[in-house]
C-alpha cells in the first residue's frame, strides 16, 4: 500500500490554499482559521482565484466526466498558483487532499485527458493536508499557546488515515495546545457515516454509524475535533437531532484559538 511520501517542508513559505466547497459554502470559518494559522507559521498565503471543488461528489457517484470538468477548473487554478511561485498547496480537509493527490490522476485519465492526468500527478507532489504540513514544519515556526480548557476527542477521518496515512500529526499538534485535553475515544478511527451521497442514499445506515461513534463518547466530552468539515457536519447534526450538547470544531479553528497573538477572529 502506498505510504505517505517522505516530503520535506523545508523552504515552504508561499502557500496556496485550496478552500474546498464545504469550506467555501458551509464552513468558511475553517479556511479562515487555516489562513491565519498558516500565516502564524510564517507562510505567505494566497487563495488562488478560479478554484471551485475537487470533484469528489461526482467522482464518488461514478460521474467521471462531470467530476473531471469541475476538478479541471481547480487544477488550472492551483497550477497557476504554483507557476506563480507557491511552494505548496494546502488543503484543510483530508478527504479533498486525498482526492487531489491520489485520485485526480486516475480521474483525468479515465476522462480521456492524459495531459491533465500528468499535470495532476505533478501537482500532487506539492499538495499537503493542513496538519500534515503544520506538523512537518519545525516547531519554532508555529508557536501554539493555550485555549480555554475543553474536554475534546479527535475524529480520524477515513481518507486521511487510510489513504494519506496522516494519522499522528493532528493529535501531535493538539498536544501542543494547552487546555485542549484530548481524551481516548474508542471509536476515533471509525467512519462517521457521512460518505458523501451515502448519507442521503442510505440515511438509516448513515445515522446509525454516527450514533455508534456518539454513543461511546467519553463522559463529559465537550467538543469533537476533526480535520474534515464534512465528517464534523455529519456528527454535529446527528448529535443535535439527538439533543446532545457536544460541539464540533475543525482542528484549524482550535489551532487558531491557540495562536499566542490571535489576530482577532471574525467568526
Amino acid at each position, binding site marked *: 500500500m502506498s505510504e505517505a511520501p517522505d516530503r520535506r517542508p523545508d523552504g515552504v513559505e508561499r502557500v496556496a490554499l485550496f478552500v474546498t466547497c464545504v469550506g467555501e459554502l458551509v464552513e468558511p470559518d475553517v479556511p479562515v482559521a487555516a489562513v491565519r494559522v498558516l500565516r502564524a507559521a510564517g507562510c505567505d498565503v494566497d487563495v488562488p482565484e478560479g478554484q471551485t471543488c475537487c470533484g469528489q461528489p461526482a467522482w464518488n457517484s461514478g460521474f467521471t466526466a462531470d467530476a473531471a470538468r469541475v476538478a479541471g477548473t481547480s487544477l488550472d487554478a492551483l497550477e497557476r498558483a504554483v507557476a506563480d511561485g507557491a511552494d505548496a498547496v494546502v488543503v484543510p480537509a483530508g478527504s479533498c487532499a486525498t482526492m487531489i493527490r491520489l485520485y485526480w*490522476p*486516475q480521474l483525468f485519465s479515465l476522462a480521456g485527458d492524459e495531459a491533465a492526468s500528468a499535470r495532476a500527478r505533478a501537482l500532487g507532489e506539492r499538495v499537503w493536508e493542513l496538519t500534515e504540513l503544520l506538523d512537518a514544519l519545525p516547531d519554532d515556526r508555529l508557536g501554539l499557546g493555550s485555549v480555554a480548557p475543553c474536554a475534546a476527542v479527535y475524529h480520524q477521518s477515513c481518507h486521511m488515515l487510510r489513504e494519506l496515512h496522516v494519522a499522528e500529526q493532528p493529535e501531535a499538534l493538539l498536544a501542543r495546545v494547552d487546555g485542549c485535553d484530548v481524551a481516548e475515544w474508542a471509536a476515533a478511527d471509525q467512519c462517521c457515516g457521512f460518505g458523501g451521497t451515502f448519507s442521503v442514499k442510505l440515511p438509516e445506515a448513515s445515522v446509525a454509524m454516527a450514533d455508534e461513534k456518539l454513543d461511546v463518547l467519553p463522559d463529559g466530552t465537550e467538543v469533537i475535533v476533526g480535520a474534515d468539515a464534512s465528517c464534523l457536519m455529519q456528527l454535529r447534526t446527528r448529535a443535535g437531532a439527538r439533543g446532545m450538547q457536544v460541539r464540533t470544531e475543525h482542528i484549524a479553528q482550535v489551532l487558531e484559538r491557540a495562536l499566542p497573538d490571535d489576530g482577532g477572529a471574525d467568526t
Partner: protein
Amino acid sequence: MSEHGDRAAFLDRIRSRQGRPAGGGPHPPPPAPDVVPELAYRTLDGVDHDDPFALLPVFVAAARAAEATVDVVDDEVPAELLLRFVGDHDVRTAVTSREPEAVALGGALAAAGVSVAPYDREVAAAADLAITSATHGIAATGSVVVDSASAGSRAVSLLPKIHLCVLPITRLVASHADVLRGQQRPMPSGRVLITGPSRTGDIEQRLTLGAHGPVALHIVVVR
C-alpha cells in the same frame, strides 16, 4: 476417473477474457514475489528451526493457546499419566489408528482396563477416545498432522469424544510451511492439520468445544 463438461470451452472462455486489466488507480498491484515468502512467526524468533528440543516450548505454548492439552514425557508414556487421563475423562472405550505408537499406547490402556479396538467407524462413533500418532507437530501453530495413509483412516481422530495424539519429538517442525511446501504426488488421500479440538462460535460467539469432532485434544510429546 472421468471428465464431464467441455474442458476446452471452459478454459477458452477464460483465456479469451484475459488481458491485462486497465487499472490506473491509486492502488496498483505489486509484481509477484520471486520467492513466495513464508509467514515469520514472532514466537520462533531466535529458535533453531532444526532443533526439536528448541521448538518444543513454542509448540506447547501454541497448542495450549488453541485449547489443546499437552504432556511431555521421556521415552514412553508413564502408566500413572495414562491412569490419570483415563480417570479424568472417564474413558471406557477407545479406538486406535494403525500406527505403531498408537497401537502400543492402546495396549497400555487395555492393560489399564479400557476396552480398546482397532478403528471401525461405528465403534469409533461411540468411543470415548481416539489414539493416533502424528506425522508432524507444527511449533508455530501448535498443530499436529495426521495422515489417512499412515493412520489407516480419515476419521479415527475425528469421531471419538477425545483425541489422544502421540507425537515423537523428532517430528516437530517450525511452521506449516515445513509440512505444506514441497508436498508431491502421490499424496495421502486425507491429511489434516489439527489445531486444538473441534469448536464452534456460531451461537453468540461463545466458544464451545466439541462441535462435531473431539471435545478435547490431548497431545503427548515423547522425547
